[in-house]
């Protein structure tokens, strides 16, 4: 009997010890955590800049952003309640999307948080610069604008140092900051509305409502999107939330229901309660003051307005910079631990126990972006990156629901699925694309970063990632030479593997190479892999020792590996990658138990995914071979077919019948070209010098091959270049030959190209 998968309820948990955080956060507290994360630096720093682009339509921009955010919040409510882990969006993308997406989600998340850090550092620089200017403490006649960037660098360095020390803003200090900034915004709104209702002229400030048209509103939406992303923290705190299935989705919804009206009210009061004293409209006046717009507005209608707003701005930007320094470091640290980035990123300082190299890299990124770009472009870059990240989550919810739909315990289900996630994707893509209109430079940075990410993934991270999740090797014997041709021979039952051992040995000997004997210990899905370790010795004695005795007679070097795996095919593929295997030799008994597989689930999987040549033998023995037939169809395949046929022919002193079928009606030129290409490939093999290519015109290639196979002791079958529709409807020619032909068969598949591998992986992902 096997164990059921670990369920969420305590009654079903296994006795195995598991560390869990205590669940302290109730529904009100976790909602306030989300509110505190959203109301802060974004609204302080970006209101002025966004008002300058949207005009009074900033109100509309905040409301429309609320709709877009609400759509993504539905996805967060579903996934956050079903998979309430600290990883949040990054984890879901990892679960739901293939290959580079998980890497890119981390890579983009690192950049997004770091650039958000740059934005907050610049915001802090501006706010502190204004404080110094107000106090008359700016030396050498410097202005706020001139001192903004040096101050941004200093504060970024300070928070890198604070994070290095391992001090975080938690407990009382964190709560004080949250209460202070929410309180200041509250006073700003109340006093602003008071001023507006006592001065009817204020309402004229809202006409024209959208001076730059809808494009200004869309730009403001993109610019302020970052002020809405804080609800993600609710999901990241999922492990500490009481009754998470219920409270996480509710907190996501209610935090937005609190924050969106507050933002709308801030926009109303900022535009309405200000009097510029000139013909300049208030929205333009706010835009001219950029990140200090809100502080300057408060000067007009709020008692101690500028002072309070400056305090609020300084506290918010510091708190947000601390949080983003921490989160960008945590993301790059996690990527180092997942082997997506160099191991140095996962190094922890021996004294402070903080990931100092990940922190240094994140700090460098924050400072570089703050120094390189103006604050509007930094904000735009951060916004575009967050939009693309949230977009990935909306794609991930579709695939996760499809892959694990009825296996998860949901606290909330997105209605109109998958229409609403798709609408969210389209809207976010539209807003992100529109940001190019506002800041092309931001997009260049984003595209550059993603491009570097792709390059890094395919040249570096992909292989390391694979090494990390590979099936464990529990026994390995190595030979000294690293550069030798390697033939991998998976062995399950040595008593039936005589022909395979001979074939592998002949291939290795021909290339002056070695054989790797692999035995995979299959472990049921429900059982942890480590349990399989108790079967290692048995495998060594019963399988590998016998195979070793049989292999010794061929006098080729060999080594041995034992792996534990839930899927034997995965273990074979892992060995191919780790040992840099050139050829895999496998056996087939001649039947499949799975209706959806062509040859057998393991062989099909290896044939499809192995990045090396593969031979699949259907034969009880390889003795007494006097003639071999090898139907070749195209040059790349012909190379390997001739090589294998020649090795076997030399060993058995056998003849080779090379055969090429052409369809009736093939034009003379086309036929000549086909044959010339194959002949050219054959000419490269000295063994094929004396061989004639027998060309036959036939409608039924399968029948023709099967007929010829009756006259030979061994039939070689190679991969073909058939159209996808034919493969789908009828199966490939080799599959049909292997099902129909009697006698000994050897399927020969040459190494795939990188493009073929990518396309097949993609098709495979969507078929799963």
């Amino acid at each position, binding site marked *: 009997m096997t164990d*059921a*998968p*670990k*369920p*969420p*309820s305590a009654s*079903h*948990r296994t006795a195995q010890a*598991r560390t869990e955080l205590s669940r302290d956060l109730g529904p009100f507290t976790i909602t306030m955590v989300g509110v505190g994360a959203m109301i802060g630096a974004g609204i302080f720093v970006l209101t002025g800049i966004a008002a300058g682009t949207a005009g*009074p*339509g900033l*109100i*509309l921009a905040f*409301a429309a952003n*609320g*709709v877009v955010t*609400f759509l993504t919040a*539905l996805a967060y*409510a579903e996934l956050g*309640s*079903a*998979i*309430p*882990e600290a990883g949040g969006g990054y984890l879901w993308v*990892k*679960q739901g999307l293939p290959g580079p997406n*998980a890497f890119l989600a981390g890579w983009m998340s690192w950049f997004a948080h770091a650039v958000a850090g740059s934005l907050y550092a610049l915001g802090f620089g501006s706010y502190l610069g204004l404080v110094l200017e107000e106090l008359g403490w700016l030396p050498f006649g410097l202005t706020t604008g001139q001192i903004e960037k040096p101050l941004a660098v200093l504060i970024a360095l300070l928070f890198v140092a604070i994070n290095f020390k391992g001090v975080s803003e938690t407990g009382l200090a964190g709560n004080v900051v949250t209460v202070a900034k929410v309180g200041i915004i509250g006073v700003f709104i109340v006093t602003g509305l008071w001023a507006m209702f006592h001065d009817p002229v204020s*309402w004229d400030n809202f*006409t*024209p*409502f*959208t001076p730059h048209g*809808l494009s200004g*509103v869309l730009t403001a939406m993109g610019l302020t999107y970052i002020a809405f992303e804080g609800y993600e923290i609710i999901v990241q705190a999922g492990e500490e939330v009481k009754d998470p*299935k*219920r409270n996480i*989705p*509710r907190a996501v*919804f*209610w935090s*937005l*229901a609190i924050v969106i*009206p507050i933002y*709308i009210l801030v926009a*109303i009061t900022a535009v309405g309660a200000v009097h510029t004293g000139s013909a300049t409209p208030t929205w333009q006046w706010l835009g001219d003051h950029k990140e200090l717009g809100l502080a300057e507005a408060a000067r007009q209608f709020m008692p101690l307005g500028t002072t309070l707003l400056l305090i609020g701005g300084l506290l918010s930007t510091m708190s947000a910079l601390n949080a983003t320094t921490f989160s960008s470091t945590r993301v790059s640290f996690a990527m180092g631990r997942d082997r997506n980035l160099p191991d140095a990123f996962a190094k922890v300082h021996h004294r402070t126990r903080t990931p100092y190299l990940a922190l240094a890299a994140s700090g460098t990124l924050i400072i570089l972006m703050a120094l390189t770009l103006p604050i509007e472009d930094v904000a735009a870059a951060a916004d575009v990156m967050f939009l693309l990240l949230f977009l990935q989550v909306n794609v991930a919810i579709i695939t996760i629901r499809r892959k*694990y739909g*009825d*296996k*998860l*315990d*949901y*606290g*909330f*289900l*997105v*209605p*109109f*699925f998958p229409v609403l996630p798709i609408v969210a994707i389209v809207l976010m893509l539209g807003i992100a694309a529109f940001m190019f209109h506002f800041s092309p430079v931001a997009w260049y940075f984003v595209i550059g970063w993603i491009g570097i990410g792709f390059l890094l993934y395919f040249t570096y991270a992909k292989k390391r990632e694979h090494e990390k999740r590979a099936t464990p090797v529990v026994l390995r014997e190595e030979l000294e030479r690293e550069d030798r041709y390697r033939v991998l021979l998976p062995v399950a039952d040595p008593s039936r593997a005589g022909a395979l051992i001979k074939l592998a040995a002949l291939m290795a000997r021909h290339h002056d190479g070695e054989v790797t004997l692999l035995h995979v210990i299959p472990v049921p*899905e429900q059982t942890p892999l480590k349990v399989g370790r108790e079967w290692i010795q048995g495998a060594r004695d019963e399988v590998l020792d016998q195979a070793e005795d049989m292999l010794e007679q061929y006098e080729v070097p060999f080594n041995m590996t034992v792996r534990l795996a*839930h899927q034997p095919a995965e273990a074979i593929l892992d060995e191919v990658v780790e040992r840099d295997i050139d050829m895999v030799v496998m056996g087939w008994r001649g039947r499949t138990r799975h209706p959806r597989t062509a040859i057998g689930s393991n062989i099909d999987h290896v044939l499809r995914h192995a990045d090396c040549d593969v031979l699949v033998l259907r034969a009880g023995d390889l003795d007494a071979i006097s003639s071999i037939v090898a139907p070749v169809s195209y040059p790349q395949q012909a190379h390997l077919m001739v090589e294998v046929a020649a090795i076997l022919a030399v060993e058995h002193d056998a003849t080779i019948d090379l055969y090429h079928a052409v369809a009736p009606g093939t034009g003379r030129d086309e036929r000549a070209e086909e044959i010339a290409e194959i002949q050219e490939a054959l000419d490269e093999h000295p063994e094929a010098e004396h061989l004639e290519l027998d060309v036959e015109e036939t409608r039924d290639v399968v029948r023709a091959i099967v007929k010829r196979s009756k006259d030979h002791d061994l039939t070689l079958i190679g991969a073909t270049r058939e159209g996808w529709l034919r493969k789908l409807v009828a199966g490939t020619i080799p599959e049909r030959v292997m099902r129909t032909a009697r006698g000994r068969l050897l399927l020969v598949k040459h190494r795939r190209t990188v493009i073929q591998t990518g396309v097949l992986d993609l098709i495979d992902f969507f078929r799963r």
Partner: protein
Amino acid sequence: MGLEDLQEQGVLLPKEEWGKHTLKPTVAKWWLLVVFAAGVASLVASYLGDGGPLTWVGVGVFLVVLYTATILCDRAVERQRERMERR
């Protein structure tokens, strides 16, 4: 990433419950559709109002719509828990 990772995280239902829970959302989806349409209409009204009374009607309706949508989703969460706990 696959079932094993989710299993390790302890987020999967017990195997005997796989396929036994419906994936039909518990939110009153037609009401939500009406509310969503009203939300879009309120945004359009705000825009067309050009800072005049229609803009403020639009903003007011938007806030009502926001709270209605939140309440609908909140109730859906409650219903979903009841459905899961009933089994």
